[in-house]
């Protein structure tokens, strides 16, 4: 009976994201037939591009790694009821700090790696904490401050690698740091495949976060704050403390996303390498699609990554343009934002009628 209820609940929570994906795929199908290709065949090619053989599977998982981490970071903030829109900046600052730590902290490879992980986490976390602090101290809206801080972070990181820490050894002086010592790299999971230890970190973190949110008092406080801040305060939850902690971990994990990209696949910080693929926004979508459930976020992130790698495969092998993937993603975004708008509307209404009985 209880199990059945749980299953029902699980299914119900899956209905919405699955419908979103289904409608996304249907819209994609329409677009594909408009350009005159066979829908089934194109989707088959896409599937193969994402999961067709072991190599593609690992490529998909590699791409999913930063998206999962970003999504997890955002999920924490959303659960606490704060709208952290600053994942991109937090990720980039994390990445550049990690690269610099790996380059300049003295010691063995493992020490370099660990200090890079710590530095990346701290940089992202503190950057995000800054926005949280401005909100609690000066009532600067988080939604806006985090968005604006993105620009600051990305430009600052760009400055660091284009002048003081630039690798000038190469012929085409790119805006990037030197390459970090191979001993500090995150190991690949399989020889010759792109997926690296960062993926394991992401999955383990998803599980840990799930457990924390569900079974611990800290998780309870975060969730109640997100559900109803008045209730949380009334019950003795320290709103400010929980908000700041949530923001710190949220940004820290986003920083980690940048860090594992640096340590596991780029081996240096390259300007634009994290912003151009739009990891932050895909991660945002993953968290929203999964309603900020950590495990769901991981799954959604892998799905979205597959959509992207699959689309690349499609472009390699068919006449259908890459943009089809954007169409599908666009529909997903539409769904997700519709959901947010509705929730926002409800909250807004609630704020208007705080009196009354039932």
């Amino acid at each position, binding site marked *: 009976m*209880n199990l059945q*209820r*749980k299953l029902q*609940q699980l299914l119900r929570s899956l209905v919405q994201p699955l419908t979103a994906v289904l409608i996304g795929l249907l819209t994609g199908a329409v677009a594909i037939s408009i350009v005159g290709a066979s829908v089934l065949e194109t989707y088959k090619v896409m599937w193969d591009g994402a999961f067709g053989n072991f190599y593609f599977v690992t490529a998909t998982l590699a791409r999913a790694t930063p998206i999962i981490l970003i999504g997890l970071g955002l999920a924490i903030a959303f659960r606490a009821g704060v709208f952290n829109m600053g994942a991109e900046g937090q990720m980039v600052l994390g990445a550049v700090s990690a690269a610099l730590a790996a380059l300049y902290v003295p010691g063995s490879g493992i020490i370099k790696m660990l200090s890079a992980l710590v530095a990346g986490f701290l940089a992202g976390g503190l950057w995000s904490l800054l926005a949280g602090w401005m909100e609690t101290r000066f009532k600067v809206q988080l939604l806006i401050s985090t968005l604006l801080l993105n620009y600051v972070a990305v430009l600052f990181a760009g400055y660091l690698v284009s002048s003081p820490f630039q690798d000038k050894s190469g012929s085409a002086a790119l805006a990037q740091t030197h390459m970090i010592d191979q001993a500090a790299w995150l190991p690949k999971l399989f020889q010759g495949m792109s997926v690296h230890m960062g993926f394991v970190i992401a999955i383990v973190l998803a599980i840990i976060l799930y457990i924390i949110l569900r*079974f*611990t*008092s*800290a998780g*309870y406080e975060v*969730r*109640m704050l997100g*559900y*109803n801040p*008045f*209730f949380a*305060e*009334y*019950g*003795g*939850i*320290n709103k400010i403390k929980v908000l700041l902690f949530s923001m710190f971990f949220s940004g820290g994990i986003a920083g980690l996303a940048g860090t594992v990209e640096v340590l596991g696949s780029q081996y240096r910080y390259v300007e634009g390498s994290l912003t151009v693929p739009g990891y932050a926004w895909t991660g945002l979508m993953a968290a929203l699609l999964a309603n900020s459930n950590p495990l769901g976020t991981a799954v959604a992130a892998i799905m979205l990554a597959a959509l992207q790698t699959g689309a690349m495969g499609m472009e390699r092998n068919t006449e259908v343009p890459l943009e089809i993937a954007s169409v599908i993603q666009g529909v997903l975004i539409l769904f997700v934002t519709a959901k947010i708008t509705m929730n926002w509307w409800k909250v807004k*209404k609630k704020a*208007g*009628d*705080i*009196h*009354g*009985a*039932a």
Partner: protein
Amino acid sequence: MTYRLEMKEMTKKYGEFLANDEVSIQLKKGEVLAIVGENGAGKTTLMRMLYGLEQPTSGEIKLNGKTVKFSGPLDAIENGIGMVHQHFMLFSDFSVTENIVIGHEPKRNGFFDRKEAAEKVKALSEQYKIHVNPLKKAGDCSIGEQQRIEILKVLYQGADIIILDEPTAVLTPIEVEELLKTIQFLAEQGKSIILITHKLPEVMKVSGQITVLRNGKVTGNVLKQNTDIEQLATLMVGRELQKLTDRNQLEGEPLLVIDNLNIGVKEAKPILDHLSLTVNRGEIVGIAGVSGNGQSELIQAISGLRKIDSGSIRLGETILNGKSVAYIRNAGLAHIPEDRYLWGAAKEASVEETGLMGYYRKKKFNQSSFIRLNGFRKLVRGWIERFEIKTTSLDEKSGNLSGGNLQKLIVARELGFETDFLIAAEPTRGVDIGAMEYIHEAIIAKRNNGDGILLVSSELTEILTLSDRIAVMYEGKIVDILDRNDATEERLSVLMAGGNENESSTKTTTTA
């Protein structure tokens, strides 16, 4: 003759749970139908189906003999059905007029015609004798006024059938009187009204016909002239009500001591003005007052939810002012909040999670910061049994509980802390008479146990039955404290309106 409204064998299932089981009601033009019944009996559910907010599992709705189906509230409104929500749905930044005409604004050259709107609202307000100030911001209106806005909005939309779901729960006694008059007047004008309430005297005053629901079924349908309060109560709870337990005489030492408390000193009218009050052990101190005279702020100050400007609050030996909510709760305070949806619960959270608030910090339920759910569940199940809280499971969303059942859950949670001191603000708001009796018993038992209780209630009868002493609040001050034996409804009313006891009643008529 045909009825204006007939609902026939309406059934609503939530999963396996039958919220309404073949419920039928009829309503004629100009008639007031009261629907009464225990918490969770299915009253709100039935009305939500009528208003198109919920689709019936089976059943038929007929308007003037014609079968209708509503896909949403807009459909229902179109067909002349209006609902005044328990939670007002007003836009607080908009004016009264704008709130009333929203959705059906009068237009000139395609633009909102503010002047005509204001005139229309004024005319409507005069026609139905419902007083509002059309230009005021809705957010600045008192609760009674907000409700009048809702009623006018429904009338403006052309409703012939008006649903009022527990409209008096939040009103002051004077506002209740006014509302009942309005209901009668509307009925005289040919409107049909469905009134849901737990207060049987109100039912006897305005309704013609009374339908009693229990466990989703109709258990009685009587005409007012053929029944009385006792019979209705029995029909509702299936047993007769008992007299409250006697209170033993206690001479307790001071427990909660508030000294010279001030809030909002910089404002034109201070919110709390040099307020001093003591609650002794083994004593219930009731606070009477028209809402908005500082009661909410006083409660919030004691429980740590609001900063104070000066003064001190002590609980036993512990100083409470300036301390965090968690610290204060730890020091021995529990708190039934006045608004269960704002403070008392999170609608999205499960029943278990709503119950867990506060307990998750206790050693017994917390093992190295992992919550021990198994032990806690036993506790919640105990509450559910004792307070007869109707819920399908512990995983049910709190927001899906009926209003009264959620209230009972919150009361159970706060009593469960077994603290020395309890703030009980509107402890029985929205609960049925059986549950009210039970909650009153529990509060008195707590008192007899030597604990102190501060009771805040807009129900004078509740204050009078429970309190040992009654403090009357007016404009942030305690204007008088009466002993239980000296207090009467009349004396309290005079004091609540700002009148001085020694002055004659002429003062009351001018200020009230």
